[in-house]
């Protein structure tokens, strides 16, 4: 089976610190994907382009509630609805590792791919006027100049609780595939059959010691 790189995000240990979001912004503001422009960054209504956002949800009925932090980025779908709709071919899925990318030099900024993504994973860069999205740090993970242990997406490197696993989910022996298999990994909005490569690991009840 072909390689499919992906993130597996463990909602059981994510503490919502936003280190993944800030390190992502830092890495991708320069390099191959950059810049990721901000508008009014220090003003009243700051706005900017991000590949990754950490959201927070409250589950259950008070007082028995769970606060669930939920990092959200492009899921690198195995059947990505954003790719076939692109009129220029700027949006594409790499055959060799399954990463969904945008060629910023071909993008005409028509936003049709963003409309075609049920997850809202794509953001138009308001100053460059082209579509931006998570690249799985494609300019890190194959960089021979980095020590092998650092050839991972910036968000994975930054996570203080190891809530983010990175690997080839088609390789049954990878850490990512094993986590999905053994810890109930699931995909978002399975109803649209996009087959997201990124998976999430659910919260687990901690049983207090007897």
């Amino acid at each position: 089976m072909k390689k499919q790189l992906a993130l597996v995000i463990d909602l059981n240990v994510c503490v919502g610190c936003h280190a993944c979001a800030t390190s992502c912004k830092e890495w991708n503001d320069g390099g191959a994907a950059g810049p990721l422009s901000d508008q009014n960054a220090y003003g009243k209504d700051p706005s900017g382009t991000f590949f990754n956002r950490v959201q927070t949800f409250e589950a259950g009925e008070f007082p028995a509630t769970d606060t669930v932090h939920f990092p959200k980025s492009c899921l690198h779908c195995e059947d990505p609805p954003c790719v076939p709709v692109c009129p220029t071919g700027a949006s594409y899925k790499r055959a060799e590792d399954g990463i969904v990318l945008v060629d910023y030099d071909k993008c005409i900024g028509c936003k049709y791919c963003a409309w075609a993504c049920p997850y809202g994973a794509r953001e138009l860069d308001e100053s460059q006027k082209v579509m931006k999205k998570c690249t799985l740090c494609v300019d890190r993970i194959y960089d021979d100049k980095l020590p092998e242990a650092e050839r991972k997406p910036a968000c994975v490197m930054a996570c203080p609780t190891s809530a983010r696993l990175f690997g080839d989910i088609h390789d049954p022996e990878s850490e990512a595939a094993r986590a999905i298999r053994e810890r109930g990994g699931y995909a978002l909005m399975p109803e649209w059959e996009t087959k997201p490569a990124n998976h999430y690991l659910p919260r687990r009840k901690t049983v207090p010691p007897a």
Partner: protein
Amino acid sequence: MKPAWSVVLFTTLAGAGQGLFLALFAADLLAKPARGFLFAGCVVALALLGAGLLASFFHLGKPLRAWRAVAMWRTSWLSREVIVLPATMVLVLLYSVFTALAMEGAALAAGALAVVACILLFVCTGMIYACLKFLQEWASPLTLLNFAALGCASGVLLAAILAAALQPDLAHDYASAALLAGLLAYVARLFSLLRNRTLRPKSTLQSATGIRAGKLRQIAQGAMGGTFNTREFFHGRPEALVRAVRWTFLGLVFPLPAAILVAGAASASALLAAFALQFVGLLAERWYFFAEARHPQNLYYQAIA
């Protein structure tokens, strides 16, 4: 979704242009009107298609790269539309030139091809929206039918105005055809409104996050100010306004223009008034078409903090 005026204008203007050409060619086959009338009509149709094309450029972040959009016609309805629209314009232009030069055979051939192009253009434009299966309000053959039927209705009405000025013997028939086309388009639009009323969103906050809890609410969306996601996918207008727009188009797309046509016995002034009102109605209809669609990504953007 947030209605984009560039796309609202493009779909209504080009739709009227396509409808007008179809009406002209039908008359050419059935009634052999004066060449001047057909030529003038084609000029108006080309102007409408051109204005639509111009409006569509304002939708692009990088308009100078628009030529690249012809590349992915194998998979993208948008790419197909980008090819078919100029092709339609060229064919209508050829038809008008051949008609003006009285080259009947060539005009017939170019006109027949232009008819096919106009229909294909309706299909492409409709499919751009209908192919997005999770935008449940759009994912229906009714989307195609509505774009085509409303375009034809406004085009035939425009043909009636031109006929009143240049080919008076056809004005009455065109006005009758406009009434019929308007009625059919209106009924189709009512069907799609009815369908969309009963839609149940397939995605829920639970399926969007995978968090298994009966009660689930968002506390923070990861940004304090607005984002592309909050700007592009929410119309941000009060429900009352959306409802008002719906009642506006339900009144202006057919009932009011029809009443004016009947009361004014299809006089030139009645036709003009009917067309002006209907076009405002079509703009409202297209605005509502976008505003009505609930994008599943909105589930992730329910609370700022």
